[in-house]
């Protein structure tokens, strides 16, 4: 089933669009190197961290990466929301487990693609040797970001199925991101999703508790959402 789903996704316009937009976002810094060097002068960061901060700072995360992630995930709703697909799973638990598996795989794919773009940008600036110094930080950030996108996908998926509309799911999930963006600006700290995706190096001091808390929250919400959705009527898809 997964093989068929992903070969279907490879032909999807949403998937191709999101891949293309992210590639363009990466290229921006190549044409305007100032945005990275500004970060170096303000925070006195080495190049790799300045590049990383620039790629994953709160504004691009909130206004570019998250919306693009919803577009990237749109096919999942189109697939799992169809009655002809649902009835073939025979029970809600199997259906939800498959949804969750796809969420985990797609979130990992999305973050891996972002890292590939980030590394290509580093390669362009001939700073690859820097990267290997920060391999431990990269691994930790990668894990937290995958979990951040899984959380976001879970919210999007739940509300899309709840309202039988991908647009409604996007509106609710994205409003969480926007609220968090403004709160993090006013109180200078993130709350949950942006906090995980826009990983600052000082966030990594709380890496293990953050990792455990997030995994527990994802599991709990997944269970809760599954219970709510199995008692929900599947009326016409909008």
């Amino acid at each position, binding site marked *: 089933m997964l093989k068929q789903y992903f070969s279907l996704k490879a032909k999807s316009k949403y998937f191709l669009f999101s891949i293309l937009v992210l590639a363009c976002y990466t290229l921006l810094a190549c044409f305007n190197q100032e945005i990275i060097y500004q970060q170096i002068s303000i925070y006195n960061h080495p190049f790799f961290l300045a590049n990383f901060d620039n790629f994953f700072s709160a504004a691009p995360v909130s206004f570019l990466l998250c919306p693009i992630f919803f577009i990237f995930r749109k096919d999942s709703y189109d697939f799992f929301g169809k*009655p002809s697909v649902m009835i073939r799973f025979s029970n809600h638990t199997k259906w939800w487990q498959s949804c969750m598996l796809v969420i985990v795989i797609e979130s990992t794919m999305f973050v891996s693609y972002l890292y590939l773009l980030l590394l290509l940008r580093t390669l362009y600036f001939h700073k690859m040797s820097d990267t290997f110094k920060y391999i431990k930080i990269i691994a930790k950030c990668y894990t937290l970001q995958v979990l951040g996108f899984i959380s976001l996908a879970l919210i999007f998926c739940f509300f899309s199925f709840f309202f039988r509309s991908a647009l409604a799911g996007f509106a609710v999930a994205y409003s969480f991101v926007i609220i968090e963006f403004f709160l993090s600006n006013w109180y200078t700290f993130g709350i949950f999703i942006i906090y995980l995706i826009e990983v600052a190096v000082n966030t990594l001091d709380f890496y293990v508790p953050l990792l455990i808390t997030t995994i527990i929250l994802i599991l709990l919400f997944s269970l809760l959402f599954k219970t709510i959705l199995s*008692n929900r*009527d599947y009326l016409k898809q909008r």
Partner: protein
Amino acid sequence: MRIKKLFYQLSFYPLLLLPFLLSMLRTVSLDDKNMAVVEINHLYKNLKGRVILSDINLSLEKGNAYGFYGHNGSGKSMLFRAIAGLIHPTEGTVTVFNKKIGDEVSFPESLGLIIESVGFWPYYTGYENLKTLASIKNIISDDDIKHAIERVGLDPNDKRAYRKYSLGMKQRLGIAQAVMEKPNLILLDEPTNALDENGVEQVRNIIREEVNRGAAVLVASHNKEDLNLLCSRFFKMNDGKLTETTGEILK
């Protein structure tokens, strides 16, 4: 004395097999032609304070086609949704293949369905669309998929994407996905919509073949000719209420 005790002890062991034997009996009884495939008792469904289905009682057997008719919004599709497990009853029970929907299973185990526009994936060919759906259960081969496409009069090797299909071709592909896995229960909501004469005849033949195979086929249609030609029992839906009618009344 010891042998007698041992004999008594051993005589209890077959009791352990009782649940297994009972489940075997249940499975065997599925093959009984007169067994109820769908059993609905006092089914009510309210949505936003409106009664959609009201006190529906129904018992349907395999190897028959059943016709449902009624004006738009009378509740035909909602009844099909309830049987498919897509909506939850406000009151009452729906049992399919001896399993209570929403309790023992979420959706009937062997079900083919057209309930709204199937909504295939537009950038895939007809064959790729059916292959994607078939990959979920993974119980049929590629040849079975191709055969299902041929049965509805389409070409399995057609390289056109689904979005380039005409309305009639889309409907045919919808029928193919409903019958390709040889389900024991088939729910078809307006199966001959958008079809030309040839297409209507092909769909009628498919329904007859499925009934002969032993499936229970439920057809909701405004086309009374279809129902008359295909079905052995007829049900009229009116404001959520179901009444069985005779063939003559239908004519």
